[in-house]
């Protein structure tokens, strides 16, 4: 087990370096082909060359290779790696703030949002899947089937905008008109976006929206897996042995059925981060996703490289954890 973990960790190195180089190359190309982002800061006012040069230098866009189209800027990449790995310095954004500060500010919001999303999709998704799987062809089954198809077929930005408009604004305004509803519900939870006064309550709905897309997949996976396992020999044995129904379903069936679901949830953390880019922007959550959106819009390469590198690490670690969880869930799997 230890050796396996070490081997996996070693594999991280080329993956992370490769990703970083790709990002570096793409952001460098973006500057080479679409111009110095510092110039865009001034807009219609043409800055005098001295000022432009000073700010360009300060922000780290002064390397001459950024003027040569197609140049992969290896020197700049090595500098960047050195700064990141030896000095833990990810550079600064166009507003001269440290990328590490930006990320440190943003991470708590994204983590809260992700936890809400994953808990929501795991609890509701698995419960719906189990109900549907145990009674195949029943009303519950159809209800789960139809509602999941509905959620799956709506892209997340549409869902987000609709929820903001109708739940946050319209329905929320009705609630806010009622005196007997506590503020934390009416102006906290049903706020059309993140609200600093209610840092947790106002994230619940955005988190649910983020979880909703994968909720459908979770429910469906659980349903299929339960249906398959419920006919398996070991379940029949367990029943024949006289175990209570609760134990047969809760321990024996569910444990085995959850393997694909757990895999999915693990992989889904990466997808959820991608979804967070959309949901955080719609619901104005000051997290990593919104940070990426904003810095991609203005072409802040240091932020994009820094943040995405961190995201890659998160996804890699999540995948490793999922692989290790297999062994816990399924005794047949062993890592040697």
């Amino acid at each position, binding site marked *: 087990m230890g050796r396996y973990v070490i081997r996996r960790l070693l594999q991280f190195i080329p993956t992370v370096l490769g990703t970083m180089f790709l990002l570096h190359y793409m952001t460098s190309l973006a500057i080479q*082909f*679409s*111009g*110095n*982002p*510092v*110039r*865009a*800061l*001034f*807009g*219609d*006012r*043409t*800055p*005098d*060359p*001295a*000022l*432009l*040069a*000073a*700010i*360009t*230098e*300060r922000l780290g866009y*002064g*390397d*001459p290779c950024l*003027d040569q189209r197609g140049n992969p800027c290896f020197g700049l990449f090595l500098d960047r790696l050195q700064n990141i790995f030896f000095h833990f310095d990810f550079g600064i954004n*166009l*507003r*001269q*703030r440290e990328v590490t500060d*930006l990320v440190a*500010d*943003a991470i708590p919001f994204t983590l809260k949002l992700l936890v809400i999303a994953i808990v929501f999709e795991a609890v509701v998704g698995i419960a719906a899947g189990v109900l549907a799987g145990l009674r195949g062809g029943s009303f519950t089954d159809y209800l789960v089937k139809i509602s999941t198809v509905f959620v799956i077929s709506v892209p997340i930005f549409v869902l987000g905008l609709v929820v*903001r408009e109708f739940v*946050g*604004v319209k329905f*929320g*305004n009705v609630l*806010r008109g009622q005196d007997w509803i506590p503020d934390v519900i009416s*102006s906290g939870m049903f*706020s*059309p*976006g993140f*609200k*600093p006064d209610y840092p947790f309550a106002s994230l619940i709905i955005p988190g649910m929206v983020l979880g909703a897309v994968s909720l459908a997949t979770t429910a469906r996976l659980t349903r299929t897996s339960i249906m398959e396992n419920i006919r398996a020999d070991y379940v029949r044995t367990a029943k024949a042995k006289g175990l209570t129904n609760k134990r047969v379903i809760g321990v024996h069936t569910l444990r085995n059925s959850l393997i694909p679901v757990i895999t999915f949830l693990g992989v889904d953390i990466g997808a959820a981060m991608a979804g967070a880019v959309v949901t*955080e*922007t*719609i*619901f*104005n959550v*000051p997290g990593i996703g*919104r*940070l990426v*959106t*904003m810095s991609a819009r203005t*072409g802040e390469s240091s932020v994009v490289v820094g943040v995405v590198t961190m995201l890659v690490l998160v996804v890699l670690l999540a995948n490793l954890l999922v692989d290790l969880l297999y062994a816990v869930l399924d005794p047949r799997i062993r890592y040697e």
Partner: protein
Amino acid sequence: MRGKFLKVAVAATATAMLATACSSGGDDNEPAGESGGTLRVYNAEPAFLTPSGGDDEPSLYVIRQLYRGLVKYNAETSAVEMDLAESVESTDQKLWTIKLKSGYTFDNGEPVNADAFLRSWNYAAYGPNAQNNGYFMKRIAGKADVAPADPDGEGPKKAPEPTAETMSGLKKVDDLTFTVELDAPFSGFPTTIGYPGFFPMAQACVDDIAKCNETPIGNGPYKIDGSWQHNVAINLVRSDTWKGEPGKPDRIEYRIFADIDAGYAAFQAGELDVLYTLPPARYKEAQAQYGDRMYEQPGDSFTYVGMPLYQDAFKDKRIRQALSLSIDRQSIIDAVFDGRFTPATGYVAPTFEGAREGVCKYCTKDVEKAKQLLAEAGGWPAGEKLILWANAGAGHDLWLQAVGDQIKEALGIDYELKVNLQFAEYLETADQKKFTGGFRLGWGPDYPFMETFLYPLYGTGAGSNNSGYTNPEFDALMKEGDSADSIQAAIPSYQKAEDILGEDLPVIPMWFNKVGAVYSENVDQFVWNAVSDADYGAISLKQN
């Protein structure tokens, strides 16, 4: 519409009255608006909260409440009024003597004296400090020594070392007096120094600029509560050290949004009291829904189609006149922008002192005249397409296409849109004068003085003269205005200069924006300053 203007006018007069009330002891019958309460406003994430750094709208909105400068602007007329300055005077419009009122301090107790201003201006101008508002110090003598230009004018990257740390044009006379020497006479100088880039900074602020950016040390009616919560909120409370006219709300809360649509949703949900701008797609809806709580006024942001005078095809002014005459501006505004703009008939924003209607005689559609002028000029080069440039991803292609269609219909000139350049590269193309056809650009004034719409855009060799326009007569008239005895005396010269533009058409004026803001039921009196926009400190809330 009329009622709204009246209401704002009343609010503005009320504030003006209040300013003079102390000395005159005037009557209290005017609805002055009570103070108190928390004003919650929309904002985007500011770039910087220091006077030397913040040059974008969200930064300025916060800085204007945290800091105060030498002068302020009248909410209605945009006339210059003394704020911290006792007087701003000059006999030759070149050497300005500024006397300060005494008794003002920063939040940390430091006095707001001559040093506070010199310190701030020198800090902004010094090249290696890389402060965005260094741009605004360009008129002060000695600017070139603290931020020298590139010697070769080509390699944009490595800046040469400055030869001085402070600008030679700034001299302290005594604690409350200093002089500013400009490179050339400029009668509009007093109008420029109300811009936040000219606000003072404390020594403690310059010593640790990063900290001062997070927790500003201001000298204005409000101070920061805690520190800047990046991307989340900025909260201001009344400052006890402020000796001037106090602000109306006890507290101003800036909520920070990533995009205006999320801000509009929050406004609809009653979480905001003021939304200083509106999502374009929601403009009509807001008009219908908020009625008299929507504030509309002609703005001062100018959109034009530049003419590359460095290209042969555009050298003849009759060609430019013909192109301009083929465009029906109002129909494009109605069709593409839901009427959110005012067609331009001149080069100076209609809200400015000295602006006139109909300066450009070629800015209303007249196909016959256009055809005639084009024929006189020898027609458009056969087989050539008219290329129209705009930056990508900002929705400019929609209206530019309408412009192209109208020209094609009127003059039979086929056009081609070139809208694939990102903003940064687009601006670099403009700087290098490489456009091959008409190009979209805009302009917003830096100070409430006609000159800001004229010289920077059309003066020979001026920074934003992207057309490459040169006219000695125009330059001479601008000089004449610059050295006039007063702001008012300068206007006739500038108007003559504008007339020349109206004939020469170095750029085709398109339109000026309209300001659209909404405010909530909690707001008692909404105040919009003609120069500095929504004036949060002057907005009063209903007290109950």
